[in-house]
């Protein structure tokens, strides 16, 4: 049974090679063979990693990794088609990501012990998030990049991991206080201020990111994660209500005071007002989906190049155009299955801390996919954020693999006897 998961890995890489093959046939007679050795390297490493996972020294789950490789394969063929220059770097990031994941698994025992230090994690989260607030450089409209010599890193991607770890540690430790030490206020149950202060700080930072860095996507993601995790940890609906009030207030205030927020919102309400100006991106994305139809135009037969930033935020529109409704549904289904599997891992954990961490990572990945898919299909106001494992981006790839590594490490059932 377990060895059958290798079949899924094989399908993943068949997708990758079929896609690369189509592109190369299109290039004939001047074929660019440069991605082939990297793709072969990734394939060999992928199979090796899955064999390592099947052995199950540090993990028990074997279905999550094939799903992640599925996303990466689709992402790589889309990049090879949209921005051929970025195909090899993305393959390189995939290889680095897989190695990082194995490292995380290898040190999983130590990492699990480190999960308990809530205040250190909290301070790290703040530092990482403030780094980009203070020293951020603007790339592609969002001021959330750190430039370190030849690399540019997106600290918010790694802040996500720290945030989940911090919230899980904090909530599992203070659960009783948050649940029981209550004051009645109208119909809400409120714990004393000092217990919810860390949560308020996280929410505040999310709003700050949104205003200062214009990084609406990350802000929304951080906020959602904080709300979901608080609800999972305490089971109290009061927090969800308070959070909703908080975000509504924040939304109204930023809408009245900041013009870029107004622009985003107006584009969402009616993109056709300014279809060739500020709403160009969204409108082109909608055209792409329409052109795709049910079956898609066929790989390399669409015109997704018309959409700006198609290789990062808008990669889902390109998939929609070339693979149609069918391809989009498949991608979304695999995200749902990944989420389901993550929650299964969470429910099988013995310790509440581990349950919260595993559920937090699943929610982080799933919410991120939801926010950007909803954005490009104009279901929600557009927010720039990467589609996990599919979009181009080193930070997003590596941080994604760190999350998957920790999730797999938590899937290891502890064979300690008794509870």
């Amino acid at each position: 049974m377990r060895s059958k998961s290798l079949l899924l890995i094989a399908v993943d890489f068949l997708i990758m090679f079929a896609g690369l093959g189509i592109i190369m046939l299109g290039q004939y007679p001047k074929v660019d063979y440069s991605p082939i050795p990297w793709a072969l390297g990734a394939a060999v490493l992928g199979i090796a990693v899955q064999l390592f996972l099947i052995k199950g020294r540090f993990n028990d789950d074997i279905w999550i990794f094939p799903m992640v490789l599925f996303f990466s394969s689709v992402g790589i063929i889309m990049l090879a088609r949209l921005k051929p220059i970025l195909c090899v770097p993305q393959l390189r990031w995939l290889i680095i990501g897989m190695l990082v994941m194995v490292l995380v698994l290898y040190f999983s025992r130590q990492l699990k012990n480190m999960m308990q230090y809530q205040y250190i994690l909290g301070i790290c989260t703040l530092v990482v998030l403030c780094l980009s607030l203070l020293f951020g450089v603007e790339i592609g409209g969002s001021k959330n990049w750190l430039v370190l010599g030849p690399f540019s890193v997106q600290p918010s991607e790694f802040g996500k991991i720290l945030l989940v770890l911090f919230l899980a540690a904090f909530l599992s430790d203070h659960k009783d206080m948050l649940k029981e030490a209550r004051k009645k206020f109208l119909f809400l149950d409120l714990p004393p201020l000092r217990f919810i202060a860390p949560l308020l700080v996280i929410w505040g930072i999310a709003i700050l990111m949104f205003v200062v860095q214009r990084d609406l996507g990350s802000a929304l993601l951080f906020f959602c994660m904080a709300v979901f995790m608080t609800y999972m940890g305490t089971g109290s609906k009061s927090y969800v209500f308070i959070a909703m009030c908080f975000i509504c207030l924040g939304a109204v205030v930023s809408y009245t005071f900041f013009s870029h927020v107004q622009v985003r919102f107006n584009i969402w309400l009616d993109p056709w007002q300014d279809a060739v100006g500020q709403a160009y991106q969204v409108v082109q994305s909608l055209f792409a989906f329409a052109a795709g139809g049910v079956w898609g135009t066929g790989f390399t037969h669409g015109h997704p190049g018309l959409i700006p930033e198609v290789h990062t935020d808008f990669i889902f529109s390109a998939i929609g155009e070339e693979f149609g409704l069918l391809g989009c549904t498949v991608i979304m289904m695999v995200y749902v299955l990944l989420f389901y599997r993550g929650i299964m891992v969470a429910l099988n954990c013995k310790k509440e801390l581990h349950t919260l961490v595993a559920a937090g990572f699943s929610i982080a990945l799933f919410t991120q996919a939801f926010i950007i898919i909803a954005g490009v299909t104009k279901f929600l106001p557009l927010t720039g954020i990467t589609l996990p494992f599919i979009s181009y981006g080193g930070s997003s790839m590596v941080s994604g693999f760190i999350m998957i590594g920790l999730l797999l490490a938590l899937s290891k059932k502890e064979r300690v006897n008794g509870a």
Partner: protein
Amino acid sequence: MQGTAIVIKLLGIILQYGLLALLLYFVYKLIKFMTKDSREIREDIYAVTEISNEEAVLTVLEAADATMIGQRFAFSDEISIGRGTDNDIILNDSFASHHHAVIALLNNLYVIEDMGSVNKTYVNGQAITGRQYLQSGDIITIGSVSFEFGR
């Protein structure tokens, strides 16, 4: 020249449809494997350890902690039970003593010995004093946990 163009065209078409088919096939297989796998986990509880003929087995029948129910502990010459972390079977039960009981092989038979516990060890509902031989099918009760002894 015409020939290669046709071959490329054909290959391209096959790969195009192949790619879509592969995407669908992946999801189909994934769902099939995962449903099968989640069913197996449930049955897996009853086969935590492999049992050979040389060994005796304790199976948890009842426990306050639902995750313990159905767990099997196989041993060959000695097994200790109690709340302390140095025991072979660690019971997280407030009615169990730190070193509650030991089952050991003596003259080819298994003997249970109470290590001076506060709440006693029961075999088939009877509190034991000192040592007692065990037979296959005996029910051992310690605190809220009951084991079935089997050989």
